């Protein structure tokens, strides 16, 4: 018996479409990670926990105030922006000049703390938004996909577009880019680089704030939910190229599709194998990623 199963073409098309849809969500999560890394060469190992917090923000807004996840997108984005800003001001700023290990463990430790805190405060239970506005399937291009997934996908793509516009078309975006390329030279242009770093953390976290709000529509919310998405985000950023925002879009879609194809062609339990094999290949063949400068 072959380990590969050949799915029908309809299943294949449906799989690829849902892979692309999920890819846009991955892309936005990865863009936040990439933005922070590109700005100051620090990997935010608490990125998954940021996502978890944004999903809880959305869940509690629904459970306590009956706010539909669609309505809590600005709330979640705002809360996460604040969290990112405070993480920079309270933690990252203090370890910038420190040894590399201190920089790794600061965000890693923050991640563990947030996960444990969520478990302590809200128990490890799986929670779910049960009566959301958008639910059920929708037909796109003749195949059926979940409406919440489709909405999340389109919204994340739109948020990604806004992020890209902000970075490449606005004065503050130029200042962010300049700070990323040469911090001292940027300061000499009159750019408040401290504020740019805090802003970068805020925006990077707000990206998962948006993604998390939409994910809460169709994904269980629990303290460890971030780990899986974070792992995929690291692979996405590595594939797209560390620090490259367009790279995370392309890589996000590739990974979304590969994940689904891996599940369809081998077995659902193995879908992440395909993703991480791809990661290993990238690290071996093109360590700087598709669009990387490093």
């Amino acid at each position, binding site marked *: 018996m072959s380990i590969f199963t050949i799915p029908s073409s309809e299943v294949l098309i449906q799989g690829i479409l849902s892979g692309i849809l999920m890819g846009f969500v991955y892309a936005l999560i990865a863009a936040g990670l990439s933005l922070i890394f590109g700005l100051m060469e620090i990997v935010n190992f608490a990125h998954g926990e940021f996502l978890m917090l944004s999903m809880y923000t959305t869940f509690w807004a629904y459970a306590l105030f009956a706010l539909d996840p669609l309505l809590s997108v600005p709330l979640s984005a705002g809360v996460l922006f604040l969290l990112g800003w405070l993480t920079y001001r309270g933690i990252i700023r203090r370890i910038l000049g420190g040894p590399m290990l201190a920089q790794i463990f600061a965000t890693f430790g923050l991640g563990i703390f947030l996960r444990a805190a969520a478990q302590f405060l809200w128990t490890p239970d799986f929670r779910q938004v049960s009566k959301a506005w958008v639910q059920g399937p929708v037909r796109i291009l003749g195949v059926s996909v979940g409406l919440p997934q489709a909405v999340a996908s389109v919204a994340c793509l739109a948020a990604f577009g806004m992020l890209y516009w902000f970075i490449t078309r606005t*004065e503050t975006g*130029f*200042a962010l*880019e*300049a700070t990323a*390329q*040469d911090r*001292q*030279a*940027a*300061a*000499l*242009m*009159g*750019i*408040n*680089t*401290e504020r740019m770093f805090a802003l970068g953390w805020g925006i990077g976290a707000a990206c998962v704030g948006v993604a998390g709000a939409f994910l809460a529509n169709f994904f269980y919310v629990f303290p460890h939910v971030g780990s899986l998405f974070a792992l995929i985000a690291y692979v996405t950023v590595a594939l797209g190229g560390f620090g490259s925002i367009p790279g995370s879009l392309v890589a996000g879609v590739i990974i979304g599709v590969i994940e689904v194809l891996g599940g369809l062609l081998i077995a659902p339990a193995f879908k992440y194998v395909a993703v991480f094999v791809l990661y290993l290949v990238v690290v071996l063949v093109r360590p700087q990623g598709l669009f990387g*400068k490093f």
Partner: protein
Amino acid sequence: MLRVQNLQVKYGDFQVLWGVSLEVHEGEVVCLLGPNGAGKSTIINAVSGLVRPLAGCLEFCGERIDGLPTHEIVTRGISHVLERRRVFPYLTVEKNLLLGSYQVRARPHREGSLSRVFSLFPVLRQRRNQLAHSLSGGEQQMLAIGRGLMSRPKFLMIDEPFLGLAPLVVTEILKIITQIGAAGITVLFIEQNVQLALSVSHRGYVLESGRMVVSGSAKEVLESALVRKVYLGI
């Protein structure tokens, strides 16, 4: 315009400047000379706030600026062109220049500043849509100086503008420095070649091992015993 008094700077346990004083008056072109490692860059880095002084006083236009963050110091009308140009490598020439006028007080004059820089360095107009890292060393230096002028500074500091450049380009940049000075911008620049630097300067300072050893008009510096012996070998 600029008054540096008794400036002391330490990098960790290593003291680089031991009480350095210097002054630049409005309308002057002044050069800061001395061998590698003397602390020349440290002085102007301290002026622009990139380096924190251990002791001493920095005054610009009569106001103390030591202790202020860099982005506030430069908005007072100081521009600092870093050593090795330090253009933004992955931005276009034009965006590099526009970032030079990022400061709020410089933004309304953007168009005018840009055309002034383009007339000073016509090659930058041709290269405006190219990424800065693809320029030659001389062109990058022109971009760095042009970017420094975009904020319409009263006072321009340039760190080793001729470093690693071909003789023809050196001549061109010397000419530009004279033009900038003639346009009413006060200039302080760092250089190691004494004769070259003094040929366009009103006054000069010579720094050695963190101490000012010679200062005076270009002629006085050139004729001082130490410069004649050590730098010119006469």
